[in-house]
């Protein structure tokens, strides 16, 4: 390449400058009259819309959240240093949105869609508003395809369908995030794009989660959107909406999306802080009046689209933290009533060694059987009733020592079921493994095994079945039905394994 002299460069620049398209449009401007705590009050900009982005003179952006007679209230998406009384503010006439695109998969971003993983800029394909209307009735289809979490207790008793909203609720340290994480890990190779939205969490917990995802190769289909506890509450407030906008982009392309909001109680707290600073009247627990709408408009956007719109889906797993197991406080009851079911985790169960600590009695999936394969429906038919009877019996027989044979058997069966529902982290079971386990358990083959050996026996038998009779597993995965013939075969094989 020949060297370019300095005069050449200057002449190139000159023509560039001469041909530069000046944007001489009018701009609506206002001035800051008050700023503090991530909120700015602006005088002027008479035509500002609710939710519009305004730009301050130092480049910081804000979103209009309050329109009064002579002034507007804005939340700031950045530091308020450099913004003072009299700073010029310009209207952009654009609603808040983030760039979206398939380049975001495998990346870690902040609530504004900017990369925070140090892997460089992300190519984007489109721009989507963070607040978007949820799909209407005619645009939807009923939820009928399962989204397997790989967790036996959930897939068998509280199945989650693609497009469903299932709340994960429980005290601190009961494994809420772990369930969501397991669900993400289980989507490997299933053509589901996962989005994990961390709201108001410690950066260290997020880093740990990302390394787990990376370790299991799950980051290849996952987007992590982070708004840590140290970020302004305005960013924590928009984070789940930004994540949903990103999810919608894929959903409208006909893809399946799983989005985890971790967690919405911190989101409500961030919104409470903003609302109080914007001088909105406080209601119960000082939350503003529209805290229900805050979450309902977010979760309504998760849906299953009809075939004309591509048949994509967005499944939401919101997480809510309770205090001392109280599900009847404000935010938990709100989100419970919005979602299509909840998985309730209990700390007592957790410390008793029951992990995942799912409370079978209080958890429910309102979509239920519609989102279960026929095979699973058949295999899990009686497990809920068996467990309910077991719990009742357990309380009943706590003090008496001599029990009749049938009661003893029922207790033993219940104990075995509880043992089988225990599952370590990052060990998802595939559909055929779950079906086979339940099938064997229902035929009381596990009941004769020593309690401490149940898990080991389960592992062994599944391995044996996959090795010696791979066609059984294959048939379940392919046809997704459990014929009597197959049940017969599984029992035969199990007996064969047991006799060894």
């Amino acid at each position: 390449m020949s060297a370019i002299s300095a005069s050449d460069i200057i002449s190139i620049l000159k023509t560039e400058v001469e041909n530069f398209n000046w944007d001489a449009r009018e701009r609506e401007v206002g001035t800051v009259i008050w700023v503090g705590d991530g909120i700015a009050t602006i005088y002027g900009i008479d035509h500002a819309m609710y939710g519009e982005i305004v730009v301050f003179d130092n480049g910081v952006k804000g979103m209009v959240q309050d329109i009064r007679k002579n002034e507007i209230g804005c939340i700031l998406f950045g530091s308020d240093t450099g913004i003072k009384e009299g700073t010029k503010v310009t209207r952009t006439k654009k609603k808040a949105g983030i760039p979206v695109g398939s380049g975001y998969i495998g990346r870690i971003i902040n609530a504004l869609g900017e990369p925070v993983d140090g892997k460089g800029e992300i190519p984007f394909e489109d721009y989507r508003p963070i607040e978007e209307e949820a799909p209407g009735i005619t645009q939807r289809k009923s939820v009928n395809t399962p989204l397997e979490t790989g967790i036996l207790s959930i897939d068998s008793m509280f199945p989650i369908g693609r497009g469903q909203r299932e709340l994960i609720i429980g005290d601190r340290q009961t494994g809420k995030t772990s369930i969501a994480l397991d669900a993400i890990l289980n989507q490997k190779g299933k053509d589901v794009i996962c989005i994990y939205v961390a709201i108001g969490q410690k950066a260290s917990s997020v880093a740990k989660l990302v390394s787990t995802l990376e370790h299991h190769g799950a980051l290849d289909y996952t987007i992590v959107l982070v708004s840590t506890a140290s970020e302004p509450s305005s960013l924590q407030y928009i984070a789940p909406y930004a994540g949903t906008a990103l999810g919608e982009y894929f959903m409208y392309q006909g893809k399946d999306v799983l989005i985890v909001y971790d967690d919405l109680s911190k989101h409500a707290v961030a919104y409470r802080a903003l609302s109080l600073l914007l001088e909105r009247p406080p209601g119960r627990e000082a939350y503003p009046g529209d805290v229900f709408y805050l979450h309902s408009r977010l979760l309504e956007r998760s849906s299953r689209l009809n075939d004309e719109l591509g048949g994509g889906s967005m499944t939401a797993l919101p997480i809510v933290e309770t205090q001392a197991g109280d599900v009847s406080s404000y935010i938990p009851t709100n989100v419970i009533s919005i979602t299509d079911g909840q998985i309730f985790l209990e700390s007592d169960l957790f410390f008793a060694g029951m992990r995942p600590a799912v409370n079978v009695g209080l958890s429910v999936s309102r979509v239920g059987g519609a989102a279960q394969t026929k095979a699973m429906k058949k295999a899990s038919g009686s497990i809920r009733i068996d467990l309910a009877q077991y719990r009742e019996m357990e309380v009943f027989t706590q003090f008496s020592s001599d029990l009749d044979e049938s009661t003893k058997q029922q207790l033993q069966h219940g104990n075995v079921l509880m043992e089988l529902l225990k599952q370590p982290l990052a060990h998802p079971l595939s559909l055929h493994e779950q079906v086979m386990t339940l099938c064997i358990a229902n035929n009381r083959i596990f009941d004769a095994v020593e309690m401490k050996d149940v898990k080991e026996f389960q592992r062994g038998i599944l391995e044996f079945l996959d090795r010696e009779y791979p066609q059984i597993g294959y048939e379940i995965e392919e046809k997704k039905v459990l014929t009597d013939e197959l049940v017969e075969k599984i029992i035969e094989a199990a007996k064969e394994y047991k006799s060894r």
Partner: protein
Amino acid sequence: MTQTANNYGKVLYDISISKEEIEQTAKLIKEEPRLLEILQDPTIGKTKKYKIIDRIFDGKMASFLKLLCKYGRIGQLADAFTAYHEYYDKQHGILRGQVYYVNPLEKAEKEQIVQFLKEKFSCENVLLEEERDEALLGGYLLKAGGIEYDFSYEGRLRQMEKKLTGRWTL
């Protein structure tokens, strides 16, 4: 500015006190800040304040000031005057604009600007305030009715900088 100040500003216009009188009062209060201090002082009795007002002002202006004293709103007098001017301009179709320049504008240019603003905001009169601002480097900057037209070199440089370095976010 509070709604109260707006209301008082409107009342000032409605009771038809002359504009000169209001400007005079505003000037007086600005030049003698102690007067407002005394009128705002809660330790001084109402009758004493009324006496002071009567000695300086007369007619409707005096009654107006007394009313403000009576309801403890005299602190909003300056805001009330501002509101009065805004309301007056609105009633008379007057638009106030500011031009910031580096090199003084020519008469024809100014007329053009005034004509443009008249059409844009459909008003009868345009009052153009001119101010020299070296920071603009060149060209001029026009502000009127909450809208800004930037024809300055400084603004164009900033625009160019944004286009060259800017990223499309939010």
